[in-house]
């Protein structure tokens, strides 16, 4: 990563973290404060992103929504990654029949696109924030599993590993000194990419009325709400959506840069 890119990336991550952990520093107001006399204000100096149908300040809601949207994205990625790491380790180190069985399973899961699988899961659990996290986590797991399996397989079959075997190092030594250091950076890049995707999937579910319900300032829920007034109150849709795209594109670029500089 070049110096400028690193500074930009640092600023970006810093801003997101402040918005998520201390939203009041950036937007001191109350995201749920209703003020009917100020409904549907166009963006102005006082309300940079305008106000919604109950007069709530959209800027305050977008900033305070960072924590909700990001937590859902993080939790879903953690779930998907956790399953993927488990499956990846089992395929890379387990007996051959486990590897081929898990591969078959993954092949089956590929035939069901992520959104369709998320919808299927919610058909059984019913809508809500937790079901959305589970749905996004489970539906992204197959993709990660294949990537992690390929990565671990390449390492296990590498000359570095052969050399360690020839030198008589124990299995644990190989895992600790070769496998884990060489896997952590790849995992970190994958997780960064994954969070961006998970935020998009979770917002899509909320947008469809299957995830976090209103009036929570979660971005997808705000978009779902803004749809009703799309023909005149464009700001209700433009700004929460821009926040989603910024996080997703930012995470994608960060993850890609990290992948390129590591591998």
């Amino acid at each position: 990563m070049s110096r400028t890119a690193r500074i930009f990336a640092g600023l970006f991550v810093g801003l997101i973290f402040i918005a998520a952990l201390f939203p009041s520093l950036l937007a001191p107001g109350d995201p749920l404060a209703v003020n009917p006399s100020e409904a549907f204000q166009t963006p102005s100096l006082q309300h940079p992103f305008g106000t919604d149908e109950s007069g709530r300040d959209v800027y305050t809601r977008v900033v305070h929504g960072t924590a909700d949207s990001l937590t859902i994205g993080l939790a879903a990625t953690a779930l998907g990654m956790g399953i993927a790491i488990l499956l990846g380790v089992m395929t890379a180190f387990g007996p051959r029949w486990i590897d081929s069985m898990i591969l078959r399973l993954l092949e089956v899961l590929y035939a069901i696109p992520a959104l369709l699988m998320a919808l299927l899961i919610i058909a059984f659990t019913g809508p809500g924030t937790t079901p959305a996290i589970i749905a996004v986590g489970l539906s992204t797991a197959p993709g990660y599993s294949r990537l992690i399996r390929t990565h671990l397989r390449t390492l296990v079959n590498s000359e570095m590993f052969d050399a360690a075997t020839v030198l008589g190092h124990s299995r644990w030594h190989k895992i600790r000194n070769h496998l884990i250091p060489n896997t952590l950076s790849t995992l970190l890049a994958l997780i960064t990419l994954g969070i961006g995707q998970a935020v998009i999937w979770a917002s899509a579910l909320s947008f469809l009325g299957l995830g976090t319900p209103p009036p929570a300032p979660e971005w997808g829920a705000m978009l779902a709400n803004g749809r009703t007034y799309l023909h005149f109150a464009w700001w209700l849709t433009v700004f929460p959506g821009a926040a989603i795209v910024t996080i997703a594109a930012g995470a994608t670029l960060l993850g890609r840069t990290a992948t390129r500089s590591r591998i």
Partner: protein
Amino acid sequence: MRMASWLARRVGAAAFLLWVVATVIFIAIRMIPGDPAEAIMGGPGSQASAEALETAREQYHLNEPILVQYVLYLGQLITGDLGTSYAQQRPVAQIMAEMLPATLQLTLISLAIAWLIAFLMAAIAARSSRLGQAMGTVIEVVAAAVPHFWLGAMLIIIFSTWLGWLPAVDTGTVQGIILPALTLAIPLAGFLAQLMRDSLVTAMSSPFALAARARGASEGQVFFRHGFRHAALPALNLTGWAVATSISGAVVVEEVFARPGLGRSLLGAVLSRDMPMVTGIALFSALIYMVVMLLVEAVEAIINPAAARGHDV
């Protein structure tokens, strides 16, 4: 002969996959706590009448032992009987047959638009300056990262609310399909353009392009005869994937533009927990995926026999 055994293996794998999907759904319905008949009817909140529950029990053979239920369920699926939708009280297969043309039309039009945009972008980027290429990359990344639900809403704001050129709701007219098709096409075009540009640049600077130039072929001939052909193969795979997952892709877009279709029917079925409908569309989607990916593999084998035998080209 080799072709036949390849096909048999593939069809076997497809059948296995459909069986797994059907079995998982069968088990999942019975794992929901409470009465499976109630789950089929939309959960405890649906307050289904005693008679309706009895009909569901009858239709799904819920009074029989679980293994008998399973065999009967698979038998029904094999004969194409997907059950009756509870929300609409009509056969699921019939509703799906009515909805399929709309989704197919949307998918095909959006694919054509995506190819057009991607081809133009890749052709321009492959022959422009460094700055132009960098800008092209940014446009491609952003286009590929924008989620359908927001892109659709933005297109409505710009072309319907502000400019007033196109309707925001799909009215079934020619104008009505432009925005939904664009919404599906733009992100796909972003991915396609990235793929095509990479292989175009490689192909245009490869030994066979140099050889063609040495034979006196014009730059245009090299581009179409060698470069474009080289770029089409990875793009074909991605296109196949887009068709294979079209029902999933249509969910959001059909919902945003209030356009009837399989995707919107699936969303409605999930919201009302109409399990026969959800099962039917999910199985059909898996079937399409298998068939389309099979076709893609066959076409790839025809275009490039070496790659199909596992050799890297």
